């Protein structure tokens, strides 16, 4: 340690007060080495300046303004979100699974086995599908193509969300 200068990393850690196994040796070297002592003083001055809290001033009354904005009942009010994503997934997940099961197994055969109730449901579902298809056709859209497009957009949106989350995990931004 006496013949070789301390590294910048060691000197930074020394000024930070992060004490490692070689602290005594490092301390002794810095005391006796003019160059390392000089570097240590430079870092000490820099760290002192970095710990000075300036240039972050928010306007006076900032907290009051923000609190007023979220207060329920005022313009632009935002009520606290009670529906966490987990709850939404818990509801949407089984619903989606049920819909897929219905589609694969054939909802007509499933519902026709439930007697009068099944027949009524079948009638309602048929009416709903027919209504949607008619509406889309009036708009000049093909129902099957519309459904396919919506599914593709949903998948793209999900993938985009996933990629953004993954990328931000390692994001190293240069602003």
């Amino acid at each position, binding site marked *: 340690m006496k013949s070789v200068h301390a590294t*910048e*990393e060691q000197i*930074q850690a020394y000024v930070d007060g992060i004490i490692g196994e070689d602290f005594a040796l490092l301390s002794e070297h810095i005391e006796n080495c003019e160059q390392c002592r*000089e570097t240590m*003083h*430079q*870092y000490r*001055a*820099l*760290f002192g*300046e*970095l*710990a*000075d*809290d*300036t*240039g*972050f*001033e*928010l*306007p006076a009354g*900032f*907290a*009051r*303004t*923000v*609190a*007023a*904005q*979220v*207060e*329920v009942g005022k313009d632009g009010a*935002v009520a*606290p*979100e*009670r529906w*966490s*994503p987990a709850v939404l997934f818990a509801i949407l997940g089984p619903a989606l699974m049920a819909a897929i099961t219905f589609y694969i197994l054939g909802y007509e055969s499933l519902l026709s086995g439930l007697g009068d109730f099944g027949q009524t449901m079948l009638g309602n579902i048929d009416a709903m599908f027919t209504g949607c298809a008619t509406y889309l056709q009036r708009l000049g859209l093909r129902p099957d193509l519309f459904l396919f497009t919506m599914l593709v957009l949903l998948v793209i949106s999900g993938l985009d969300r996933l990629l*953004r989350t993954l*990328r*931000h*995990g*390692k*994001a*190293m*931004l*240069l*602003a």
Partner: protein
Amino acid sequence: MADSHLEIEQILAGDHKAFEAFVKRYQRLVSHIVFRMIRNDEDRRDICQDVFIKIHRSLSSFRHESKLSTWIGRVAYNRCLNYLEKKKVPLYEDLCNEGETVDSVIGSAVRPDEYAEDQDRSARLRHEIAGLPAQFRTIVTLYHLDEMTYLEIGDIMKLPEGTVKSYLFRARQLLKERLLAKYQPEEL
């Protein structure tokens, strides 16, 4: 921890004063992150406001699995990332070409100097900090001003502890070198 539970319950119950006190307590941390990440002065205040509105909206999803300050810091950091993404600010990793060292990319991306000779010490330092990449600026601030540990900073920025340590070292070394290149050691 019990205090934060009570405070959150009060806010979720619609206690306006409790939320105001909450904002006052954490606005320093949020402003540190936002002011370091965002260069545009006009947008900073709006983003700070957005952060607290988002926190208010999602406070019910806070599970007390991490420190409240870390969670708040993460919300602020993610909001800044979204802002920078919308503004199409290039990602640091996009600028890192193969074979190019991290420090050369940082050096090439620094804006030209516009500092005045008679700037005071803290203004000179702020100017040099502004020349660092956003993540470096944020790490330096969270470490020195908010006295956060490597682990807490990593939790906010989704970075491994070793990476935080390495970025902090590089940022401070760069600051020292740049200041020494312009000023005498005794002026530091």
